[in-house]
Every structure is written in C-alpha cells, then in structure tokens.
C-alpha cells in the first residue's frame, strides 16, 4: 500500500475534522459547563470546611472564603435552573444542579431555601433506572437530617442547662439520625455516599455528647446518656468500617484506618475488652465474615429515664 498517501490523507482529514469539531462544539455544552463550574466552587468550599472541621488545617478565614464559594455556586445554579430547567432535565442534569444549589443554601444557613429545593426535587430526573442520579437523589433525602444537625448544634451554642432543652436538641438529633439512616437504606451499599452519611451520623453522636455537657446532665441520666451515645458511636464506627469494604477503592486502605481512629478519638473511644470484631484490628479485620455478622446495638432510640 502507499503509506505516504495514507498518512497525508489521514493528516488532511484529521485537521479538517478538528477545525470543524471545534467550531461545532463551541455552543453546545454551556449548561453542563456552568454546572461543572458550580461543582468546582462547591467542592472548593466543602474542602475548606472539611479541612478546618477535621483538623487538617487551621482555617482562620476559612468560613468567609467557603461562604463566598457556596454563594457563587448557589447563584449560578439558581439562575441556570430558573432559565433552563427543561434543557437540564432532558440532559439528566437537573437533579445535579438542584442538589448543589440546595447543599450550598444549607451551608449558607438558608435552611428554608434548601428545603424548598429538596421538596421540589421529586421530578428532577426522567432517566431510566440505573441512570438516575443516585447520589443527588439520596442527598435530597438526607438534607433535612443534615439541617437538623446544624440546628441542634446552633441550639447548643446558647445552652439553657435544662432537661427540656436537652430533649429539644435530642429530638432534632434523633430525627436527623433516622433521616440519614433512611437515606442510607435506600442507596446501594457500595455507593460512596454511605461513607459520608455515616460520618454525618457520627456528627449526630458528637453533638449528642456535647449536649450532655452543655445542658449539664448529672448522675444516672448523665451516665445513661453517655453510655447510649457511646453505644451509638461504636455501632457507627463498625458500620463505617464495613461500608468501606463495599465501596470501590476503599477496601483495606490506610485512609479508612485513619478515619476510624479519628472518629474514635473525638467520640470517646471504643472498649477493647469486648469490641465488635471488625474494630479489633483495622484494617485487617475489616472483612466479609466480620461484616456479615455485624450485630452491634445502637444508641437510638434514647431510652434513658428522665428524673421525675
């Protein structure tokens, strides 16, 4: 065969194709690009918050910077959804856009707006089963729980040191835990969102412990609440370990060991006298056998007796 002819023809074709493709593609992915930009702003803000929250960095200005990024993401998406929700839905992008906006509103403290978006999300996707945006839909379901955690945390900033206020906080936290647990039960065990939702449930526990401290519980109620919160933490730590087994890319990693130790430390540790087998040696004991027999009692519902 004539090799130079093949090469020159291929080169001519490739150049023409590139030029034509560049011209053609110019205006056809703008919506998706706007969403990508908003995703990037949102992730940047979340990274700042998470790093500050989990102690990887000391973020003095973090709160302001994160808020700015959340606001940019929310504003971009609000406008896009208002103008092009039909196109977005057709491209299976509407849920993604709405979830990012709702989460941004939540982090900005605009809980009503966040809930309104979540409540309007029921018809955001017409995609067939299997292609539905699983993460985004689960986040709409989890959002009320996430908001309740922040509301409980806000209440603890101004403690009344009464059992009544403790119970108000516990109602928020208990509801949050139920909502998150429900969201978890409706997604694939291998869905990476499991790791996020379990950590959010651990944030429930940490706020529970903080409530015991801030509302000044004493004596047996103090001991009982402390024990139940600890019980819930141990259950969640075991579930976190087992979720990592199912999630692709997380099995047996050093990251999971660090993560479990981190949460163990800030929630008061785990008894090594009689721990769930999956937590005895991390990550070695995180295996199918230990996880299929996982039977750890949780701390909810709160059954501690209030003083008469």
């Amino acid at each position: 065969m004539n090799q130079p002819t093949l090469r020159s023809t291929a080169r001519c074709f490739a150049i023409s194709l590139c030029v034509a493709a560049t011209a053609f593609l110019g205006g056809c992915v703008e919506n998706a690009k706007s969403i990508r930009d908003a995703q990037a702003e949102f992730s940047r803000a979340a990274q700042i918050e998470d790093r500050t929250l989990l102690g990887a960095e000391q973020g003095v200005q973090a709160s302001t910077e994160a808020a700015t990024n959340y606001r940019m993401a929310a504003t971009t998406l609000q406008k896009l959804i208002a103008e092009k929700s039909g196109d977005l839905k057709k491209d299976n992008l509407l849920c993604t856009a709405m979830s990012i906006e709702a989460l941004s509103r939540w982090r900005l403290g605009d809980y009503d707006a966040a809930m309104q978006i979540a409540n309007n999300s029921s018809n955001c996707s017409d995609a067939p089963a299997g292609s539905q945006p699983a993460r985004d839909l689960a986040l709409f379901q989890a959002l009320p729980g996430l908001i309740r955690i922040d509301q409980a945390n806000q209440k603890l900033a101004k403690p009344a040191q009464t059992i009544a206020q403790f119970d108000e906080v516990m109602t928020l936290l208990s509801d949050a835990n139920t909502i998150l647990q429900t969201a978890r039960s409706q997604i694939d065990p291998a869905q990476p969102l499991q790791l996020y939702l379990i950590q959010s449930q651990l944030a429930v526990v940490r706020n529970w412990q903080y409530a015991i401290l801030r509302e000044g519980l004493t004596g047996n109620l103090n001991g009982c609440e402390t024990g139940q919160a600890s019980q819930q933490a141990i259950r969640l730590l075991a579930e976190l370990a087992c979720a990592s087994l199912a999630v692709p890319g997380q099995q047996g990693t050093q990251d999971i060991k660090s993560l479990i130790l981190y949460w163990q430390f800030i929630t008061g540790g785990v008894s090594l006298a009689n721990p769930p087998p999956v937590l005895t040696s991390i990550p070695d004991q995180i295996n199918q056998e230990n996880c299929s027999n996982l039977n750890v009692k949780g701390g909810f519902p709160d059954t501690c007796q209030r003083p008469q």
Partner: protein
Amino acid sequence: MPGLPTDEVGLILFAIQSAIKVGAAFQKSYIDATTAAPIMLPLPNFPTTIDSQTALTFFSPGVPPNTLPGGGNSFVSKNPVLAALVSKAFASGAGSLTDDEAASFQAFYTEDFIIQQASVNNNLAYHNGQNPASLTSDDIASSLTIRQWPRNPNPSMLQALAGTFIDIGVQYLATMPGAVSPDTNEGKALRGFLQTASNIDFATEGADQIVQQLFLATVQTIKNNPAVIAGGSNSQALVSNVLSAVYDKAQQQIAAAGGDFSQQDNIRSFAQMLMSTALSSTAKTVFDNPGKYLGVGQPGQAALISAVAGSLMDSLTNGPQINLRDLLTPQTLQGIVQSALKVVGQHPEILGTDNKGLTTLVTSIATTLADPSVKLDQDAVPQLIQSILASTAENFSLLVPDSTNPAQNLLTSAAKEILTIISAPPPAGAKWTLKFTSQDSLQLANFVFSQVVGNPDWLVDLAGGSQSRMGTVVQAVLSALQTNGTVNLTKAAGLSILQDVITACASRLDFFKADPNGKLLLNDALDATIGVLFNPANDPAAKWLLLANDTLPQVVNTIFQLLTKHGVTQANIAAVTTFLQGTLTQIANGAAWSLDTFASQLEATLEPTHAS
C-alpha cells in the same frame, strides 16, 4: 454513487459531516461526565475538639446498670486523681469541672487513648491539645469526595468517541465504489474484515481504537493496491487472517503496556502499518498458493499468513534491546514480511508446535544485532534481518541445523562475529583508521552470508582460538591494513581486499595452517603482500603506482589467487616476498609495469615451487 473523497475539498466536507457526529457524541459524553463527576461534600457542624464529656465517655463507670462502660474504664482505678475527676464529672456533670480539672481530665484521656491504641499496634503521637489520630488532607478527600454512582453506567468519553469514529469509518467506506456490495472483490475483501471484527469483544478497553485504525488501513490498502482484491474469496480470507493475527497481538501488547499511552499509541500505529504492509506485499504470493498460506482446502491447516503477521507483530515490537518498531520504514517492513513469508512458506516446520518459531528467530536476530559489542548503526538492523531471513528461506536445513531451535541460525552467529570485528575501534597507533558505515557493514555481511551458505565450515572455530575461520580472516586482513595502511587507502579498496582474501581462503584451507613459529600462513601471506607493499621505505614511484586505490586490490587479489593455485606454503610465500621486493626495485629504477606482466612473472616464479 460518489467516489471516495481523495481531494482536499471532498475531505473537508466529509470532515464537517463527521464533526457533527463527533460533536454530538462529545456533547453527550461531556454531559454524562458532568452528572457523574465526583464532588466533595461538607460535613454538618459538630464539635471537632475533645472536651470533658469525651473524656467521661472513655472513663465512664457503666452506671446505672446495663449501661455500657467506657473503653478506658480500667485506667480509672489505677490513678486516684483520675478517679476523683471521673467521679465529679459523673455526679455533677462534665461541665462542672474547673478549667484546670478539665484540662487535666482531657490530658488523661489523650494519654490513655494512645496507650490503649498502642496495645493493638496503633502507634499514635501525642501532641498536646490535638487529635493524635489527625487526618491528612488526602484522608479527608478520600472519604468525602463522592461519586454519583459506584460504577458509572455511562460509557467513558473515550469509549463514546471511539465508537463514533468507527461509525465515521463506516461512512467513509460507504462512499467507496463497490465496497458495500458482497459481489464485488472490494466487498469480499471488506467482508473478511467485518466478519473477523464481529468476533472482537468491543467491551475490551481500547479494542475499538485498534479496530478503527486497522479498518482505515485496510480500506486504504484495498483502494491503493488492486492486487489485494484480485483474489476474490481468497482476498476475504487474507484480510480476515491478517486482521485476526495483528489485532490479537496488538491487544495483548497494549494490555501489557499498562497506562503508558505513548506506548499504546506506538503499538497501534505499528499494527496499522503491519496490517497495510502484510496485505499489500503478500497478496500475490498468497493467492498463488492459497492452500498453503491461507489454510483453505485443508481443514485444520494453519494459515501461514496469520503466523507471519502475528510473529512479526510480536518480534518487531518486543525487541529486548532496540525498538525495531521505530526503525522500520514501510519499505524495510515490506522486505521483512516478504522474506518471513518465504521462510515460512518453504519451511513451515520453523513455526514449531506452538507457532513461536518465527518469532524466536526474528527476536534472536534482533537481540544478537543489538548486542553492545556489535556497534551496528541501528538503521541497518531491519535490512540485516531481511537478509538473514531471505538466506534462511533458501538454505534452511543448512543454516538452521536444529529446526526445533531456530534461534541457532548460523548467519546470526556470523553476522555478530563479523560486525563486532569491523566495528571495533582501531588499536592505538593504527595507520588506517577509517570506520565502516551501515551500508559497508550490510555489504560485507551479505558477502559473508554468501560464503557461509557456500561452506558452513567457515564458522567452525579455529583450534585454540575463540574466533571462527571467517572471523580469523576478517580480523587478520583488518589488522594488516590498520597496521600497514595509509590514510590514502579508501574504504572501498579495503573492503575489496577483504573480500578477495576471504574468497582466496575459501579455496584453500592451507591458509589456516601454522608456520614453524605458530603463526598462520594467512598472516605470513598478508605480511608478504600488504606488509611489503606498504613499507614506508619503498620508493615514491613504486608507491605511486602500486598503492593506488584502483591497483592495490588487484595486486593483492592476484597474489592470493596465485597462492591458492600453486599452493599456500612457506616457500611460495617467501617467493612472493622476494618477487614483490624485486618488482618494487625495478619500478623505482624506471622499469615498465603492468598487472598482466606482474601476474605472469609471479606465476612463473611460483610454478617450480608448486611442481616440487
């Protein structure tokens, strides 16, 4: 039906149509990728630092009954201060501790948590006031960066685009006259491609890219080489066999290349060139004998064309020391393919039971020639491979004594020995230092190959030496020229002398006999000719005449031919020395000289000796 768009305007219009398809595929992929993109999620608010309640949880006594005791409860009884703090925190609330008590309580917690973890081999560092199990940015990103799905249900952008490119290729094909008709020769040839391609698992990563490139190579080859489609149904078998072999090997090599995209690209490009060359350069041979090369007519018989294509794909892309793929041009590849097909066609036993024989042979040649001692310009390697394959095809049983071990090819050994000698740097003080080029090496190697084919005993090692007879001659002549020659001696003259001496030695084994001093008669003869002719003390008039680059090789050749004719003996060699010195003196004195007279006078001098 419109013709294939070979002009640039036609191609540009076709590219625009294609771009619309690519654009649609890209748009869908970009949107799918946006939906699937991982995002980092923020955790809800919670107290991130430990407090006295955290410590109380750890040291909790498990009161009231049926309450879970803390994980560090066993530490409490060992320290009265800690016990007092636990007691107060339990009874009055952890918030009732003074600041100092709270700090002390939390320090107990941190220390005992670290001790507890150390007991299960989790070694944590103590940093006052900080979480000893602190997370890195990577830990955080790993656990909170969340994908849309565990496994993306949409094809990757690469897969989607590659599929579209194949679609474009089909459109390209549709514009080719006759290509889509099963009754035309073009259609039959392409049917071979499509039938084989239909068996390929396109779910295999990268399969579509290879097929696309091989498809384009096939279409172009069919268009530019009528011989490829001259075989009718045999064309179909040819395309099918070559595609099958080249695709399989390319896919294996790409898988082995891992994530090295540059390497993958090189493999695909070479596969494309081999596909094209294997179709165009073998068509006539294959169609003249389809039973042999295509395995048709004899069920179960191996298709030799497949074996050749597969073997070359393996051996030429997996060279252990040199990258043959980059050295090959369409022309040199064509030569190798044709030679390889000839070897396999005439001696199918070379393939062995596992079809690896040809791969072994080509790989061993490449490995041998790539040896650092050879110092061969790598551009010459493909041509040498072709030469060795071509000679092997004609003299298989002679050159491959053990057909089950084709790596032991006599020509490969000869090439290595000779090329090592001629590429070695001249010794210190050498008077003739010209280096041989790749073309010189190829010329000499081909000459040596012809001698070895004529008499394989050339490669028998000399007793007590490490070189073969051939190596000994080459080394001796080269040394004689380097030691005695001058800068005026050209490479052409040197090579001519070398070949003449080899030819002379081929006629007389006596050159390898030793004189009473243990020196080979070959070396004595070289001293008697080259040593005497290049003597610096010779008269300028004699040098002018006898050392001319046209004359010198003829003089040396005459002497060696007469020695082979009249006997390689010490006496004859001594006679040559005496005769040559006399000739030099006569020329210095102004006597006339011609090669014919020189030859007849020398023969007269040698005849009596020979007669005795």
